[in-house]
């Protein structure tokens, strides 16, 4: 199967129902995208498919054919993604950090669609992403900081 991942063309030989997550992690060795629940309940596995955030743990690789997958490893190539990553570091958002790949991809997708989200917009976009360490107040602050960055 031919895929486009982070702008590069990749060929993989896996059953069509293999989730994008395990194709990335085990077949291609791209471990930035995390496994958290396997049922689209926690958001740790969030990647973008043609710019839309999806849960890669339940999305079969066949759904990515002829589409573009963007993962945490390439999110900085997007101006918004870079601003999000910078805000995350400047506010020291992470604790253990495990969920943050998914959080950053989800936040980037939000800000690309909606450069100045309200608290409610943030709740809606981010509530699919669990952080067990409890960094939500900082995630909210970092999204707002990244949004301001976009205004400049």
């Amino acid at each position, binding site marked *: 199967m031919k895929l486009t991942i982070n702008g590069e063309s990749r060929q993989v030989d896996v059953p069509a129902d293999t989730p994008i997550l395990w194709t990335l992690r085990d077949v291609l060795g791209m471990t930035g995208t995390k496994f958290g629940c396997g049922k689209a309940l926690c958001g740790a596995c969030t990647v973008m498919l043609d710019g839309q955030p999806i849960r890669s743990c339940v999305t079969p690789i066949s759904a990515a054919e002829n589409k573009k997958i963007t993962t945490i490893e390439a999110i900085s190539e997007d101006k918004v993604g870079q601003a999000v990553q910078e805000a995350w570091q400047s506010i020291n958002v992470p604790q253990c950090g495990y969920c943050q790949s998914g959080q950053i991809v989800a936040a980037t997708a939000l800000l690309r669609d909606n450069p100045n989200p309200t608290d409610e917009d943030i709740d809606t976009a981010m509530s699919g992403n669990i952080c067990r360490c409890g960094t*939500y107040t900082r995630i909210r602050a970092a999204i707002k900081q990244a949004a301001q960055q976009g205004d400049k």
Partner: protein
Amino acid sequence: MTDNNLPQIENISRRSILKGFALSGLVLAVGMPAQLLAADEKQKYGRDGMPNGWVDDPLVFVSIAEDGTVTIVAHRSEMGQGVRTSLPMVVADEMEADWQQVKIVQAEGNEKRYGNQNTDGSRSMRHFFMPMRNVGAAARMMLEAAAAAMWAVPVAEVKAKNHQVIHAKSGKTLGFGELAQKAAEMAVPENQNLIYKSADEFNYIGKKDNKLVDGFDIATGQTTYGMDVRLDDMVYAVVAHPPAYGDTLKSYDDTETLKVPGVIKVLTLPSSPPPAVFNPLGGVVVVASNTWAAIQGRKKLSIEWNAGPNRQYDSAKFRETLQASSKQKGGKVIRSKGETYNELANASSTITADYYIPHLAQAPMEPPAATARIVDNVCEIWTATQNPQAGVDTVAKWLEVKPEQVKVNVTLLGGGFGRKSKPDYLVEAALISKALGGQAVKTVWTREDDIQHSYFHTVSAEHLEAGFDESGNTTAWLHRTVAPTIASTFAKDAKNEMPMELGMGVVNIPFDVKNIQIENPEAAAHTRIGWYRSVSNIPHAFAIQSFIAEMAHKTKKDHKDFLLALIGPDREIDPASLKDDWNYGESPELYPLNTTRMKGVINMVTDKADWGKTLPKGSGQGLAVHYSFVTYVATVVEVVVNDDGEVSIPRIDVAVDCGPQVNPERIRSQIEGACIMGASLALTSEITFKDGVTVQDNFDGYQVTRMDAAPKEIHVHLVPAKDFNQPLGGVGEPGMPPVAPAICNAIFNATGKRIRELPIRYQLES
């Protein structure tokens, strides 16, 4: 001590210590209570009392490259508390290293070399601040001695500053890189000769804006957690574990499994009879070329299990058993002062309340995972563990090899919360590798494995009674606490809470009440009971701090005023006088229970939160205070309860007195996180059992707080310490216990409805 629960504890702990066996995981986790020592052993406290103690040899922790790069070893596990930043930062500061030129390397599990590594009990900074200062100061003095020798000047004339050593008289300087070789030849100074920096010379310690060493790698997806380890020719495994604790494998059919593309092999692991300790659960293993194939293969297994002794475990029924025990006079008397039952019978008025707190699963975002291979009779493991030495010891026992033949490499942990203190999943990986002839294998726990086979937080019933005189002063306090004990995980028939569990806020209450009776009726365990961030402080603080608010309401007093009066005059209390001989393993002289500090956090938080401010209908403030991990925390929560009974939390204020604050930024983040984890268990989280099996198995059933339900604002207020010579308190856990009672007290003030069982979930729906 005439404590009658000692025999079983003594059995397991003494024996395990004598054998040097990983059973001491329990002891590792909790420190060794005084009464376990033989008569001729002197009680050791704090870092001295921990297995393998502490090491402060600069040659172990620091190396300097000729390009000036200073490499500092982080020997404790990073699970979000910031320890890979904070402890090396202490070394760097004391040695005058420039943080930009510092590299951190993670130590493998080897406590003989590094000192205690069991990252648990909110101890890392409390126990290793001084050893790391020693490391840094010694390294700095060796660099200075090297420079003085090279310049042939008295060492008193040179001074290390910002990664170089300066000779002020001549204006000469030498960089740390240029001095590296010579410095390594210098004698390591004796501790009594170490010269420390003064606090006003600190560059990083106590500063507000320290950045995380792993911040960039996390933000860019370049970190390696246990789940992310990859080795050449690695295969992947998942295990079908026995559904109920104590079940064993009867038979299985893998015909369909072996048809799944990618599945390589199916094998079995033996089950371990209780007690669980850190032994693997056993079951049927599916080995595949990738994780997905292994998971698919496991679904196709047809397995018959022999029902074990816990198939009757039913949370609804067990709750009745616990609550019946808690309401019945008797059980082991833990603390008795005055004539509590007489006073209650003769009191002007009384109040009684019962509280219930369910099982919880730690559910770190990274489920357990371990990668193992065996080469030349050495088993090497890469994993996210809080307790690598217990991993080494337990794996060695199961492989029947010497501990020197097991190497545990510690990755970043995607959360721990106590779950990753138990190395059962390391043993699985090692046994599977052995069965595969030593091949590298990553054993992955799915979320279902994690939630169904946790070492669960216990389940508790707490019964409280109080008596008052005519003026509403408290004259009697009765508390019965009933909960399966962590000791049951190490000694099959343990039924009473250990001194450690009772010392988590049941006995060590500094209340100025003449008559106090505390009892602990027995409770049997029917699953693996383990520790979960802040452990038994969760049920104890929930019950006690809710009850005090109920007492205040009953006597028509302001909650804060009532609480301050109950604590009473300023004093330092010897924990032993409260029947707490544990005190988090710390010296009672250094760490007395200080009521001034406890009242201090109450006053600070109520001041910052504008306690008693006017709020609209449906809103309310709630207060709670708790002492745990030798730190004082008071929390004020503001809630809004809407017409549908849904709770939202606009604001939480927390005042923390943890002594000196080495990395205040990470202290704040830990307290913020504790507020949210505390909100999870207050609002929605619960593990229940039916026929011995957990009803919940993923984040749909086991619900944790998400962004939309999280507190909108969290304000952390740190009580300044006099200086960095004061004893340090814990930080990772003590933020948790006051959250749930403060939320429930706020709900009462908002609605008049009293929550006595967790989680709140739908209780406020009318």
